[in-house]
């Protein structure tokens, strides 16, 4: 009886991904990497990868002599686990102000057709952003000048007394996420928060629905649903 070290190395690569998916699923951190519509991918990946890794590693003890692993196997293993190492180096990262600049260009009118106009829910940032571009959506959702609103978002730009707050909406994952932004006029005496800082804003819809006149801007922790 001896160990097949090539199989051990490959099995470790599978196990690393299985543990990563399990952790994303159990900890809820998966929402940082997949959109709400594709959360099932995490559950499937966690269960399937764990099963495959266990079955594969069960065969590491062999009877017949096997070749020792080649150094290239270590390189291949390195490529396979590289994303996990990177995720460990910088945990809990999300798309921020830099990504807003890179991905800017989405028009709210396209999103307007996908959004519900159900008035029961509080208005969210992306709905305000869509209402800027689509008068029909604003009317259907009941968003009008002077309306009181409360929402969260992160700071993507500062221009004196006005900050731009943004939120991403992802279909599958952050790779396809598009940013939606709205300008917020800060109340007197409130200093502009730094870029990427999440804030909770209370205020009212400004002229032509193009901005929000804030009465309070409070810094908050990053919410769980960053791409919804």
């Amino acid at each position, binding site marked *: 009886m001896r160990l097949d070290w090539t199989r051990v190395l490959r099995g470790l690569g599978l196990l690393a991904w299985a543990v990563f998916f399990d952790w994303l699923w159990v900890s809820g951190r998966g929402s940082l990497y997949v959109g709400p519509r594709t959360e099932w*991918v995490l559950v499937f990946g966690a269960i399937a990868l764990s099963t495959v890794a266990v079955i594969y590693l069960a065969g590491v003890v062999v009877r017949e002599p096997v070749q020792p692993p*080649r150094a290239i196997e*270590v390189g291949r293993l390195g490529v396979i686990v590289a994303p996990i190492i990177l995720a460990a*180096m*910088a945990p809990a990262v999300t798309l921020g102000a830099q990504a807003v600049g890179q991905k800017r260009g989405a028009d709210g009118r396209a999103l307007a057709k996908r959004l519900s106009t159900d008035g029961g829910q509080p208005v969210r940032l992306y709905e305000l952003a869509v209402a800027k571009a689509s008068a029909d959506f604003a009317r259907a959702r009941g968003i009008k000048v002077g309306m009181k609103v409360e929402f969260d978002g992160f700071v993507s730009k500062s221009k004196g007394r006005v900050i731009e707050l943004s939120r991403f909406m992802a279909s599958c*994952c*952050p790779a396809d996420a598009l940013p939606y932004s709205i300008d917020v006029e800060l109340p007197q005496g409130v200093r502009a928060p730094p870029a990427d800082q999440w804030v909770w804003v209370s205020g009212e819809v400004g002229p032509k629905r193009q901005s929000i006149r804030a009465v309070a801007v409070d810094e908050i922790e990053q919410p769980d649903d960053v791409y919804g």
Partner: protein
Amino acid sequence: VTVEARTVLVHARDHARLLLSAAIALAGIGLSVSPYLWLDAWQSYGFAFDYLGFHIWVAVPFLALSGLTALGRLSRAWAAVCFAVLVAGTIPALDGSQSLHEHTVERSVLVPGFLLALVVGAWGIDAHLRQGAAGRGRRWFRRDAARPDRKVTVPLLIAVVGLTAVSIVAGRVFDLASVDEAQTFLVIATSIVVEALPFVLLGALVSALIEVFVPDRAFAAVSRLPLRLQVPGACLAGFAMPVCECGSVPVARRLIIRGVHPAAGLAFMLASPVINPIVLLSTVVAYQGQGALEMVLARAGLGIVVALMAATIIGRMGAGGLIRPQAPEHHHHGDAGRVRAVADHLSSELLFMGRFVIVGAALAAAMQTIVPQSFFTGVLTTPLLGTVLLMVLAFILSLCSEADAFIAVSFIQFPPGPQLAFLVFGPILDIKLALLYTATFGRGFVLRLALVTIPVVIAGAMLFQGVIG
């Protein structure tokens, strides 16, 4: 005379090594006390015995490098590279040590530890290369030189594990996540892999099930069918395979290996990511109220046409010329049965494809981080130029075919024709797929595929634009 000359040469080489070692040690010690000369805070406070520990700690990586060089455990080339890295890392650390921010000072104190780990890593890799090298000449960088079949060595494992651990700790200590570009790159790269890997797994599972459970006679029966039935049949089978483009590659590869005509395998691979029900449904949802029916029909129609044409033209070469040969897989099933066989095939396929998905995701993420989307979408274009621009964008973004409709519909400055090109071309050829295809079918495949699909997609998009516009 020759023997004496050789002895003199060996002595000279030993002396040179010792001199280099001494120079490294002296430079390290000198650098560790140099802040008294060039940093204000150190000049103001002057030397105190309390600082001695810090000076020694800063010099430790240099002393380690010096020791390894003196003992001949590190080649002079590696020693020179390490020395340059140590100097480049130590100077900012010394500069940070006089900071008024406690956090910066703490980070500076940790730097020599990271540098020491780098020296150990360099030793491990150098020792591994020396042990594994056949003879003295290292010709691995030459294409015509046979690569020595190196085995894993203990120094290599120490280096890899050590450097990995140091990278993780350093990433956290220096707050890699606070660097904007790193943040965007990491999120996009990791998310593409997390999203794609389960689909690759699903494709690998289907591939393994085909390998283990479908008997040869079934493939023999399929391969006896006339090609004009096989190819369209395989194309339409894409309706029954609700996975993204990453999952269809291993299935097509396995089908071709088992005897299905390459054209049929390719038709399935290229059609299924465009015409599967989930993709078509997502297109309907995205284009609701904006000509959803026309867009869905055009996407499915053009997808099938492109798949048929590419498969027929490229698939004419036999399986031997199409599938890239891979190292034989050694599975030790014994009597463990078919479950184990499925797991073995699945794992091999997943690990093989997974590497290329990961590299492709990294490239796509790098492009998204560096090139702003407005570079492509912010210009006023003609339908033809717009089609080409959106095809380039589809190649770069490497989106999942189940999500790309939501992105395409947001490009409202482009007419429907270019949007259709984006929807058809992306699932057939993008950065991650190019790597996956190269690994599976060889280097020429991507070029051949591009040559066939690009004109057909452009023509289809223009026709659609002409009819709809």
